[in-house]
């Protein structure tokens, strides 16, 4: 008997499954916390509050044309070099990067030497202040993990209220991408003497740029 069949046979014996019987009824759905069930501006305010509570920083801009200035300002404020690796996301193609002459933009997937990466989130979750990053050619999984500083564009229209809403959004596209990451603030560790330090292996800084303008249909 294969290990698979052996294990499943033991499971059936253990739970007393009779041949030909179906699974039992599902329990009633779990409660969804009221906190995240908010709409419109209140949802944006909640998202910002929750993201800041986990040590992310948040700015809000009207449209993608304002992105270069927002990125430049952030880098200058953090004393970081004005150089950024932006993912291949086509939404970044039409951004007027030349409005910031000092900002050096390269496109692609960040490698070990890249300090700052710009990516776009698939969604946000107000309940937890989390970003939902889905891996694809436009925004590779590693773009949110390799750099020291992750700058993430989040369309206001993509901010969901609750974790369950975010799950429903993932479900709409059918099969999941290879990697879906819910990111709540920068990387951290408490492994030495239980003192929380930011920037264990992933980014030390997570900067979220909320763009009010919805994406072009």
């Amino acid at each position: 008997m294969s290990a698979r069949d052996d294990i499943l046979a033991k499971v059936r014996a253990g739970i007393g499954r009779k041949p030909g019987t179906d699974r039992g009824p599902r329990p009633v759905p779990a409660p969804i916390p009221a906190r995240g069930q908010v709409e419109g501006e209140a949802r944006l305010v909640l998202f910002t509050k929750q993201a800041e509570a986990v040590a992310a920083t948040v700015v809000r801009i009207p449209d993608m044309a304002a992105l270069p200035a927002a990125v430049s300002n952030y880098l200058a404020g953090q004393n970081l070099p004005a150089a950024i690796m932006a993912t291949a996301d086509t939404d970044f193609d039409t951004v007027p990067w030349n409005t910031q002459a000092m900002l050096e933009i390269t496109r692609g997937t960040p490698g070990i030497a890249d300090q700052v990466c710009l990516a776009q989130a698939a969604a946000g979750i107000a309940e937890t202040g989390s970003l939902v990053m889905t891996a694809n050619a436009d925004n590779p999984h590693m773009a949110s993990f390799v750099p020291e500083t992750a700058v993430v564009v989040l369309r206001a229209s993509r901010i969901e209220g609750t974790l369950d809403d975010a799950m429903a959004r993932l479900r709409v596209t059918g099969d999941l991408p290879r990697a879906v990451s819910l990111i709540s603030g920068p990387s951290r560790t408490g492994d030495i003497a239980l003192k929380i330090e930011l920037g264990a292996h992933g980014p030390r800084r997570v900067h979220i740029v909320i763009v009010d303008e919805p994406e072009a249909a």
Partner: protein
Amino acid sequence: MMQVNSSAFKEIAHKALHDDQLQEALGLLRTNFGDARATAVERLPEFGALRNAGRDIRNHTLENLDHYLEAWEVKATEQGAIVHWARDGEEARRIILGLCRSVDAKLMAKSKTMISEEIALNPFLEDEGIEVIETDLGEYILQLADEPPSHVIGPAIHKTKEQVADLFRDSHAALDPARRLVEISDMVGEARQVLRERYFEADVGLTGANFLIAETGSSVIVTNEGNGDLSQGLAKMHIVLATIDKVIPTLNDLATVLRLLARSATGQEMAAYTTLSTGPRRTDAEGGPESCHVVILDNGRTGWLGTPFQEALRCVRCGACMNHCPVYGAVGGHAYGWVYPGPIGAVLTPALVGIERARHLPNASTFCGRCESVCPMRIPLPKLMREWRRQEFESKIQPLRQRFGLAFWRWLAQRPVLYRWATAIAVHGMRLLARDGRIRRLPLAGAWTSVRDMPAPARRSFQSQWKGRK
């Protein structure tokens, strides 16, 4: 299997009580994790209802485990993952070695998995010539120190920052000996720098799984450091090591258990990273592993189904039971002598290694019940420890004196008249021994009175006072 030292519980616990550095570390655990959990729970009014829901989801899944394992397997396979089943540690180790060999792997980047400790994966792979690097900071520290973990989520909490600094100086010989290594941030930075290159060098990334989702065929890891993502995202091959109890039905069930997990563990609302991994890379442009293998391990768990210990399979390894346990808080995790410490360890270890090798653990409890009161999955830990005590008595593995003592007690307690008469005499005798309301030496209880006094009993027992009130 990892070496079992649980029979030395008393000796190790005794040393631990006199270890000042350990006692300092354990004190932090109570304030940092215990208080943080209470605050997080207070902020979520639905927390109690969510615990019920979490328990019900896990019960439903376990009661239909064959269905959900098969559903998960179908979906995971459809998504391009290759599923391997392993009855025990030996089979799992062989499968993982074979996978490493198939890509000619020299280096494995490994994210924290307690199951890999259970099956002693690292020494096995190292013997076969495959270098393994632990990437979770706590596990990395322990790998350098060659020590087992002492907590399910903070494996190195027993180490002080000075001990970590010394360890880094000894181990990172290539770095400048005059470098600053004083603050915790210096050490976190150094580990980041050292491990960064290793992620890019690794051929295989191995992660555990907090959950498997039947609906999508995914595995889920919950981390704060991001090491699990870097381990799987930069290697050619992603291997997931998970046990059969990890499966949950749907994405919404994931949302529910996530609301419980981090709050119970560290008092966070969410851990920094929750990543759902499903199969290998879809396109070369997105990067990520070219192949994805999931090893599903039983290692005796099927034997708990249909027994009282089925309830322990609800465990999500948050560590709340040990963070709130007065015994764990006094002796630390190493005293438990195997992979899983604290109250959940006192239940799991006898089940995994045999009660005869771990009989002290279910006895190392005051039955205060705090573990059950904080368990997000409402596992009745005291009840399960009591079940082990019962099995210990029935299998006749206790010392004779203890067995006779218990047998005598049972005989006496079943005879109310005799019991009341005997306790009245005992109370009288103890009062004779007391000076100023304290008993300093008591026959048959020398171990107790050698380190503390016993208060003298009240003149009349509770039972006789109760009778008097009626």
